[in-house]
């Protein structure tokens, strides 16, 4: 994020008065929800995206020129999804943005048809127990 550059200034003691307030400890210069235009909930669908909801680029997405309508954070999320399907948690860590902000931005991308989201299946609704067997065998084989 942008506040990192503030660290490369003159060392302690040499700093000009008034320049210290924007160091790394002070947090980001841009308030997080400024990136969402102040919105804290995503889209009209209003579905809360789980931390492990999986976000995939939509192969049928509108042409790339549409992307230019989004902000830089939207584009960061899209480029993270380009390499592989990402969970909301991974996107938050990868883009260095709070989860709440990422949720709003993904809502935008979803509405614009740029991505698809697979919501996690609650364990009680797992299709069958073979999946748990697979998990156990997979863990043992690691």
């Amino acid at each position, binding site marked *: 994020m942008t506040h990192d550059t503030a660290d490369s200034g003159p060392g302690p003691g040499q700093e000009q008065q008034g320049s210290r307030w924007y160091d790394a400890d002070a947090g980001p210069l841009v308030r997080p929800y400024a990136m969402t235009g102040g919105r804290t909930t995503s889209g009209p669908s209003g*579905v809360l995206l*789980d931390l*492990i909801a999986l976000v995939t680029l939509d192969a049928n997405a509108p042409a790339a020129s549409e992307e230019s309508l989004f902000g830089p954070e939207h584009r960061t999320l899209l480029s993270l999804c380009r390499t592989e399907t990402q969970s909301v*948690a991974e996107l938050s860590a990868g883009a260095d943005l709070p989860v709440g902000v990422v949720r709003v931005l993904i809502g935008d991308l979803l509405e614009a048809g740029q991505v698809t989201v697979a919501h996690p*299946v609650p*364990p009680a609704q797992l299709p069958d127990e073979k999946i*748990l067997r697979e998990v156990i065998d*997979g863990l043992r084989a690691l």
Partner: protein
Amino acid sequence: MGFERSDTTGGQNTALALKILVAGGFGVGKTTLVGAVSEIRPLRTEELLSEAGQTVDDTDGLDHKTTTTVAMDFGRITIRAGLSLYLFGTPGQDRFWFLWDELSQGALGAVVLADTRRLEDCFPAVDYFEHRSIPFVVAVNCFTGARAYGAHEVSRALDLDRGTPVVLCDARDRDSGKEVLVRLVEYAGRMHTARLLDSVG
């Protein structure tokens, strides 16, 4: 992309992700355990307190000028293409309980890490998962120098429900961590089956 287009509900061919929580007191080794078994370096995600915690963390007329961030460390294990396990270390402080509710929603189960030198640190986590009927195992992180207790003694000291597994482990060791997860998934499977039978009978 290999799987079918699906907008909301998980179809048969969509990627499946499962969530496991790692809870326990401060400094008991949650992130260490996540890091030992994860295929990726543990990542950190942050949640802003002002967003969900306004009522919890009343800043008393401070006009919401303070935003506290809560960090959660997490890791991933890919079982196969389209099936992965995510591990989340829960925030240790009690005042972030509201985050647990969201984290535990739809979770397959939880690992409660315990240190026998301060067993009481894991009481809140044990209570939490018991009350919500979320399958959990207690993993005793065997710190060097800590007096060794048997699994049975820990189970009695925590007054665990019959059947709740207690595993002795070394949170730094990958194989040990894997074993803890295997025990949890097995137990979650048994709980799941038992509930199905209950609902039929």
